């Protein structure tokens, strides 16, 4: 059975985007130990149309609506994370440079594994595919 992995990357070589700053993620399809890029998936569909070209700041209105801590990073709190995570709900795991607390909890809720790493996509895939291959075939990780 194949599965999907979402990757936050700006150059399609390295895992180099934080979950919060990624507008688009790469979705890879994995079958056994081989993998291929399946699609590029937008994460901030609504935001793109609303805020394109504007400086992302925390507006007082959005703060009120979603309990934003008002740190000026365009954070929209738990509901925003939930929405974004929902877009990746068909993935088995996600690879980002960093994943914030709200999003982490949302991923955990959906039993999606988070790998917050900074390395080449190919390196990460080599390790992750081997790990899942062994886990799925109930083989010891020591072998």
């Amino acid at each position, binding site marked *: 059975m194949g599965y999907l992995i979402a990757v936050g990357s700006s150059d399609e070589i390295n895992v180099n985007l934080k979950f919060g700053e990624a507008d688009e993620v790469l979705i890879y399809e994995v079958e056994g130990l081989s993998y291929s890029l399946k699609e590029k998936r937008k994460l901030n569909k609504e935001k793109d149309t609303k805020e394109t070209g504007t400086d992302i700041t925390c507006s007082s209105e959005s703060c009120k609506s979603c309990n934003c801590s008002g740190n000026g990073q365009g954070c929209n709190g738990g509901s925003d994370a939930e929405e974004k995570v929902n877009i990746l709900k068909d993935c088995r795991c996600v690879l980002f440079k960093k994943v914030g607390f709200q999003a982490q909890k949302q991923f955990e809720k959906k039993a999606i594994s988070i790998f917050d790493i900074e390395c080449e996509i190919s390196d990460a895939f080599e390790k*992750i595919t081997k*790990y899942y291959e062994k886990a799925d075939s109930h083989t010891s990780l020591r072998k």
Partner: protein
Amino acid sequence: MAKLLDKQRYKCALGAMQTVQAIERALPVLHSGPGCAQKLSESTGSSGYFSPNIFPCTSINEKDVVFGGVKKLRSTIDNALKVVDADLYVVLTGCIPEIVGDDSGEVVSEFADADKPVIYAPTAGFKGNNYKGHEQVIDAIIDQYLKKSDKKEKGLVNIWADVPYQDLFWLGNLRELENLVRELGLTPNTIFGYKRGIENIKKIPEAEFNLLISPWVGLSNVKKMEKKFGTPYLHLKTLPVGATETSKFLREVGKFAGVEEEKVEAVIKEHEDYYYYLIERYADLFLENRVINKQFTIVADALYTLGLTKFLVNDLGLVPATQFVVDDTPQKYREEITEEFKKLNFGIEANVSFETDGYKIHEEIKSHDYHGYPLVLGGYYEKEVTESLKGNFLNISWPVQDKVVFDRSYVGYSGGIRLIEDIYTIAVQRFN
């Protein structure tokens, strides 16, 4: 085929964090999943300057399984050195990092120049139980911290016996063993408990000899010290409980250390006189055979099962039913230990069973004819089965649930008296 183990009497090797904790101002640094320390720390008496809830831990997760946890280990050691004031940092690895192949030893070696010593003991659960883990920690101290010393202190004796916390009486037992050795004019050196710690560890290579009181735990350690430091060792398998074994103990230690025979005999006489004065006073109670049992069973680790069997036969004149050793004694030691159970007074031999499965132990206890009420000395698990047989039960081995032990001891002449008190306290209650 997977096997169920009912009523396990030990923990995984990572339980050796308790061995580290017993060394004053030594800090376990755990390279394990979150929760290991919490699960392994249910024994009482484990709070203090460092307690399991504050042991630094890498809390490794799925990411570390896939990508390795060495980075986290490095930062955890680094920060532990910065924020926790300890004398010795002992990195203990759990199952996960050992399975995925983290080179923890390599990371620890990077801290060779740190202000405080950092050592590492592989204590993955699949490598064995906490008895083995205890040995691993001592091995780590010998291999990574201590160096051979040209200076040897005459009369200095390192004493190795109990596994701290696994035996709730560890502190009192060690102190009593120290007292006995001290009375022979020797200087005891132990590393566990109050005011021992790193300074005593440093003295280990200077000792005249190592004294190991244990059927098997620690034997590999003293052999290693013989090889590395040239320190000879005296291996006594029996925990000296009561007059018979304690006098034997003093004679053997005295002989090995070259203490004058008259001096040894004088110490023995003084103790035995008082011991038998007490026994005499209660002879009427012992002769009142309706309160005590004819046969007994002990369910404990090799150290206790052997030591207490000898005490109950030699000093109290009871008859042994099957004795159970539940510490998963390695196969290579079993024959020798079985032989020890045959060296009892009055030509009595005890049948010993190396069994870790509580269900099987209970079935054997239930099916044995004790010729009356059984006396069972064991873990709390044995309470119910003993009660169902209307026997007398004393909780002396892990898990201990029905008593609080600070520094009581069952070792030596006084320890034997304490044990008689405990057994007869239970026995006489039956008729109150």
